[in-house]
């Protein structure tokens, strides 16, 4: 079967999911199946088919599974958000439309994505500049103690880290393509470990510093782990030197340890991570209330969950039981309602997407394409790990979004652009010579 037909068939589960999901929420809400659920399903399917036709025309050879996997995640996210707040779901659907427009724009504008390399320094400077915005007075704002967002009053709110991650990957892919040989060959052996040459390794050290700075200045553990992890992943693929990764991990570990024990606000976050059920921390402002209730929500879910629309999010007096259910805590809501199995299914869907991204990287015929595909896929995987890890207490919680599922305009738009880039790489890689 041709690739594009496989993609079309792959969209069927997504449309079924969105229809069944809305039907489930409706039945739970009103004990009646409204035809609105079918309308939502049909509209969503229409959007996906439009995107599919666009891909069919512009990128006929691209990976056929990537877009359906994204559609499954996005439709599932839409249902979850609808279940939490119907108004937000409408906004999310609008963001999805805007995201698809930018998705199409990216594909049209960067048919030859390799020209991105020419702008790599502009891209990296803009990306880093964006990251600092949340700390600027007037437009930046803090959520949960971390400086994650930019708010232009009356216009929009956006999270620069979502955009910056793509810019950084483009820069690193290009930079490492140029220096990978030097990094390997110019290295000196010391005690059996290959030490990279300092000159070429400089920018890498800069990014290490950047990750630490993000942690200190923005208090954003999540982006810090995401960017640094992405860097190490690309460095490893580019050089095939485990020693670089080990050195990198050790440097990060020392940095995290030092900051975690010496910077009060980071130490406080580590404390809430280690002792979320300590009553004092639980009741403290910016304490462990959110993490603890994420755990309670998961405990309520059990193996199979309580069912769509049944998770408790608010208190009878109207108070908040689970803060930020549509963004940071959406994984906890999913686990509460669909249980361990539902949550695992979501994680496996992400893993399948990442697998397709890596497959694309392996098929790519030039180093830049390979590194770009690896970087983008790894970044997405790390983003999932950071937020789900935070909710499940594997690592301290930071508010990054669960890609395609969480409510958030910048997230859905940026991640659709990320998919567009992966599809561009894939189309070139799979095009018959």
């Amino acid at each position: 079967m041709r690739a594009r037909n496989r993609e079309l068939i792959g969209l069927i589960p997504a449309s079924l999911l969105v229809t069944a999901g809305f039907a489930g929420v409706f039945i739970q809400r009103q004990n009646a199946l409204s035809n609105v659920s079918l309308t939502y399903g049909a509209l969503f399917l229409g959007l996906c088919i439009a995107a599919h036709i666009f891909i069919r025309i512009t990128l006929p050879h691209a990976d056929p599974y990537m877009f359906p996997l994204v559609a499954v995640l996005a439709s599932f996210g839409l249902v979850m958000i609808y279940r939490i707040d119907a108004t937000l779901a409408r906004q999310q659907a609008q963001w999805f439309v805007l995201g698809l427009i930018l998705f199409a724009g990216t594909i049209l504008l960067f048919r030859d994505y390799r020209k991105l390399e020419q702008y790599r320094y502009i891209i990296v400077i803009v990306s880093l500049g964006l990251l600092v915005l949340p700390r600027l007075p007037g437009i930046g704002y803090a959520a949960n103690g971390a400086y994650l967002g930019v708010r232009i009053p009356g216009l929009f709110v956006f999270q620069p880290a979502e955009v910056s991650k793509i810019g950084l990957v483009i820069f690193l892919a290009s930079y490492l393509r140029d220096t990978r040989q030097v990094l390997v060959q110019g290295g000196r052996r010391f005690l059996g470990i290959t030490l990279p040459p300092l000159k070429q390794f400089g920018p890498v050290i800069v990014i290490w510093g950047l990750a630490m700075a993000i942690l200190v200045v923005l208090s954003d553990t999540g982006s810090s782990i995401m960017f640094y992890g992405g860097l190490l992943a690309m460095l490893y693929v580019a050089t095939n030197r485990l020693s670089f990764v080990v050195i990198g991990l050790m440097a990060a570990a020392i940095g995290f340890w030092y900051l975690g024990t010496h910077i009060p606000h980071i130490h406080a976050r580590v404390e809430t991570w280690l002792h979320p059920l300590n009553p004092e921390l639980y009741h403290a402002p910016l304490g462990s209330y959110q993490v603890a209730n994420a755990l309670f929500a998961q405990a309520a879910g059990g193996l199979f969950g309580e069912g769509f629309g049944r998770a408790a999010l608010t208190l009878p007096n109207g108070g908040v039981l689970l803060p930020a259910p549509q963004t940071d805590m959406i994984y906890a809501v999913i686990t509460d309602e669909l249980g361990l199995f539902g949550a695992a299914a979501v994680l496996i869907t992400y893993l399948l997407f990442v697998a397709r991204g890596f497959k694309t990287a392996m098929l790519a015929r030039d180093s830049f394409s390979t590194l770009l595909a690896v970087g983008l896929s790894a970044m997405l995987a790390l983003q999932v790990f950071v937020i789900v890890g935070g909710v499940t207490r594997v690592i301290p919680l930071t508010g990054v979004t669960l890609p395609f599922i969480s409510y958030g305009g910048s997230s859905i738009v940026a991640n659709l652009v990320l998919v567009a880039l992966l599809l561009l790489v894939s189309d070139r890689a799979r095009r018959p010579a």
Partner: protein
Amino acid sequence: MNGPIVRLFGVIVLLFALLIVFTSRWTVFEAAKLQNNPLNVRTLLDELQIKRGQILAADGTVLARSVPAAGNTWARTYPTGPLFAHAVGYSIATKGEAAGLEESAAPYLRGLQTGLSSIFGQLSPRPVGDDVYTTLDPNAQRAAQQALAGEAGSVVAIDPSTGAIKVMYANPTYNDNGANPGAGCGAKDCLVNRVTQGQYAPGSTFKIVTATAAIDSGMYTENSVVNGNSPITVSGVPLSNDGDQSWGPQTLTTAMTYSINTIFAQVAEHVGRATMTKYMKRFGFYSKPPLDYPSGQIGISQPWSSTTGKPFPPGSPDEDIGRIGIGEGGLLVTPLQMAMVASAVGDNGTLMTPHLIARVVDPDGVTVKTINPTVYSHVMKPSTAQAVTRMMEKVVEEGTGITVQMPGVTIAGKTGTAQIGPSGSNLTQPAFVAFAPAQHPKVAIAVMVDESNGGYGATVAAPVAKAVLRVLLSEGQ
């Protein structure tokens, strides 16, 4: 570059596996621990969303029901309020507080939540609890309330043949409606259910136990003669009869009829600690009665040491068994225990397990559980029970209990008037224990009053018992 990509993917798979492991940890392995964490209000929310079943009296009077509250939750209301507050208790889910049957019958009232249904939570609809029918009799309970009005004390009535509790009323009571049950009940703790938790000096009502031990052990008969002179020395301290009256040689029956202290003190000493303790245990002393009521709200009946301030170990050589034999010597009892004593004698020596719940009915009206009468202990031989019954009949016929006489009914009873407060004070704890009709009793009753200024069991407690007996005996005829 394909090798590193594959290995990198392996690392990502491992990271995701870690996420699934941690999700399993919270959803399955540590779920119970998290759900029981006091910080977790979800359990409470679930509780609020359960429509608990009703609690009803034996005749169907609603004692507790659920009413819709804000945000899809339910609240409890108690139509009879203070009348049944001690028996029914309260359940305030928002605070996680409960008392009385609301606490002890909660598994029924919340509906049976099996482990399976909590795992397959979404397969079962929102739970509706079962209704609990009690054995309580609203008319008799009201009679107790009226008769006891103005006195701190308690009334408890049991059906001796089944152990069903018909009346459980304690004064002061409280209103179990509202967010703060018992708020503003003054210095006396109105939340204390005096029937099950009150610690009273039984006084002469305990002579029923002494007589049982004496006769059932074969050491005495109801006609055994003992010298009733006063005072005598018991455990090195002089003991007098009421008014220091010297009765001379008298039968045990006469000693019971006129409540002669010196005779029963000698009998108890002669029967001995071991035998007395054995019979007390058979009646239920030294342990919590197995009532379907919160264990934390049930007191133990036993003698206390005035020197250590702790209960004597059963049969302790330090206890003054002579004085215990007449309901003194540090002995403190619950009214429920004394009603169980009367019940055992009335039921031919067999003590039935006391219970408040009669049956459990599911929302479809199907009876899912019926509480069958069970034997708690065989206290004495039927012949002993007959002898003690005859002695107690005499008390009402011509002795200290004539105040409860009712036309057409033979009542077997025993008065008690314990001296409390500093020596020389006039304060007493009047008590009356009885069962009726004497030969085939329908009711065993204990009435105990906290404090009286010179009042007697016969004058303060017995009239209360009479009022309640009149209602209970007139029913079902």
